[in-house]
């Protein structure tokens, strides 16, 4: 790219991270000895050298205005020599070297309306996606549900009273941009009605063969509808994945009457104790009920508190359910077990109960 580089820079990549590392990190890079959690949202990492780095974790809505980011920057200048970072769950971490700065910083952060916490045995921010804010595929909104659920659960962000970590994620459609499929609790937007086909325009905007091919259940076949070449959908075969819509705008899945939310539980990513697990279906459908999705928030809260009350120390949601068994989980949670819960996709047979390890 050398020649273009003169005129117009391309392929320069991101700035080198070292430019943004505070001196204490540059000095103790890779030489941290241990860490301690001082209080909710505050931890200290102690280096071999004895140096101490304090991190204050601040809850964020992830959708941030430049105004808010500038306020963060000001706080960083005031208390952290200008250094801060964001986490893989989109929280902000202020990096301090002076312990005396911790409390004043927390005070100002809270004044901005941001909570401090999310460390250790707590609920951290909800990894989520775009929803109605920006995506065409959304079966539900993302930010609105996240805000409503966290308003209910914020105490668990601000304290460390839970048995272990609890990770909640939300994705507004089956594409699962939030990678929610391995979360303690996953909130997933779903469609429930086969595509409404725009027969008049399909031919012009999509390749009919691609559209048919896009369907994993072969529910789509070419057809001529009122004179125009188009496709038809065998409705019994449709499981609303929206892959056809992703490849063809004329296959609209979004539908206010039938779109909604499903709840999944028991996934994890870490290798701690138990190997990583996928989340499993707990509640097949809850309605889209803006602005606060009361059905969703109470369902999530119910599950969180059930786990909080009954799990052993360190036991993640999925580990707990595995120990007590799914039948007991459904009973305790008061969730009706339905046909929808039983897998009927590719590996369904392996999810059946293939033993007499039963409890009564």
């Amino acid at each position, binding site marked *: 790219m050398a020649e*273009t580089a003169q005129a117009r*820079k*391309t*392929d*320069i990549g*991101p*700035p*080198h*991270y070292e*430019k*943004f*590392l505070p001196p204490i*990190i540059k000095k103790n*890079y*890779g030489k*941290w000895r241990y860490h*301690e959690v001082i209080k909710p949202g505050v931890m200290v*990492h102690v280096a071999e050298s004895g140096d101490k780095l304090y991190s204050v974790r601040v*809850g*964020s*809505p992830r959708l941030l*205005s*430049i*105004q808010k*980011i500038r306020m*963060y*920057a000001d706080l960083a200048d005031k208390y952290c020599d200008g*250094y*801060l*970072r*964001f*986490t*893989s769950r989109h929280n902000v971490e202020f990096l301090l070297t002076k312990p005396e700065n911790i409390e004043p910083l927390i005070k100002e952060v809270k004044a901005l309306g941001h*909570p401090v916490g999310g460390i250790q045995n707590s609920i951290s921010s909800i990894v989520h996606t775009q929803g*109605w804010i*920006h995506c*065409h595929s*959304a079966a539900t*909104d993302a930010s609105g549900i996240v*805000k409503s659920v*966290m308003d209910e659960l914020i105490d668990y962000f601000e304290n460390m009273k839970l048995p272990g970590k609890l990770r909640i994620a939300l994705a507004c459609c*089956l*594409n*699962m941009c939030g*990678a929610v*499929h391995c979360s303690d609790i996953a909130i997933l937007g779903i469609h429930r009605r086969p595509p409404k086909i725009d027969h008049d325009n399909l031919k012009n905007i999509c390749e009919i063969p691609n559209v048919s091919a896009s369907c994993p259940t072969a529910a789509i076949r070419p057809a001529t509808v009122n004179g125009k070449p188009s496709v038809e959908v065998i409705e019994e075969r449709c499981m609303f*994945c929206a*892959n056809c819509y*992703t490849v063809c*705008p004329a296959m609209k899945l979004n539908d*206010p009457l039938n779109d909604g939310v499903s709840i999944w539980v028991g996934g994890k*990513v*870490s*290798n*701690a*104790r138990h190997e990583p697990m*996928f989340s499993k279906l707990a509640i097949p459908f809850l309605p889209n009920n*803006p602005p606060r999705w009361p059905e969703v928030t109470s369902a999530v809260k119910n599950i969180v508190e059930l786990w909080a009350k009954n799990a052993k120390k*360190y036991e993640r949601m999925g580990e707990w359910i595995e120990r007590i068994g799914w039948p007991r989980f459904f009973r305790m949670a008061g969730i009706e077990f339905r046909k929808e819960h039983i897998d009927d996709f590719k*590996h369904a047979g392996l999810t059946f109960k293939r033993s007499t390890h039963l409890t009564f």
Partner: protein
Amino acid sequence: MADNHYKTPKLDELEKGRWPSFVKEIKLASQKSPMATDLLGQLEQSYNERIGHWKHGGIVGVMGYGGGVIGRYSDLPDKFPHISHFHTIRINQPSGWFYTSEALRTLCNIWEKHGSGLTNMHGSTGDIIFLGTQTAELEPIFSELTQAGFDLGGSGSDVRTPSCCVGPARCEWACYDTLALTYDLTMAFQDELHRPAFPYKFKLKMSGCPNDCVASIARADLSVIGIWRDSIQVDKEAVKEYAAKGMDIRSEVVDNCPAKCMDWDGKELHIDNSYCRRCMHCINVMPKALRPGKDRGAALLLGSKAPIIEGALLSSVIVPFIKIEPPYTEIKELLAKIWEIWSEEGKNRERVGEFIQRVGMGNFLEAIGVEPIPEMVAHPRENPYVFYEEYFEEDESEEEK
């Protein structure tokens, strides 16, 4: 238009409550940006109608790049003209998401000039997300970003913006330098990142240890997860201290060991490291007393992804242990081989994990020149449908297919 001129009773509800409100953020932005204002208006309508109002994205971008911009158009352009275009720009974050206040302000200033003033810090893949601008603004934004030392991230069928955990920058458990590897690979693959040429997207995520703080095993085509080969480092005194401070080492540590390879006699902690599964639990619980071993590196796992279309996958082990040292030649050569065969034989929109399942792991390994080893499987096959590849002809000579 300093103020929001739409009535948004539903959204206003979401300004209440203790969790920070995205609505407040949009309103903050709308003090300066009519785009943000129109976004509020359209979103309120979505809340009323329970449906989004965005059209299927079109192809927009900056010169010479195939990715980095997500085109987005309102389906109510007349009603909300300022968001008739509302494209997203993905900007490659610095490794580990470290910033100076300076850097943040620079980004904010660019975005104030050319866009809605709304961002995601960060996107799920890890990019800085500039949320909403016009097609005409793309080139100016791009040149200002590059002047400031930033570049676009990935989108479409390319290498997606790699991301990593905080690692050695702040974590005592990092088994390799996640930030350095992430930066190096990102630079090495600029072309693959900016010019989609694969069957589908390819994501890389680096975690420094099996706690996997970037969830790489669930959402990266290549998951690089730190691990150690030798024995857990034990500080016996510190163990006693935890016990003294009231930790029930049997029930909290020993009984939770998935390998059942620990023992605690009340005085000393014994670990049979040859059975240890490197799960991290005991270390997590006693960070002052236990640490990963000294012979550190990473395990390479392949193939995780979300459900679309063959079902969600977790990454699986392809290399159980590899030393992670610059210039990371082995990893790059492995990736090159993987990309070569996947690009040749992968179907359109087939992720590498799906590809491996379709062609068979055994065949895939052969193609990339990696020896099969038992560490790659949870267990050997249970079905007898083996594709034996050679057979004898009557003349007794071995036949190759």
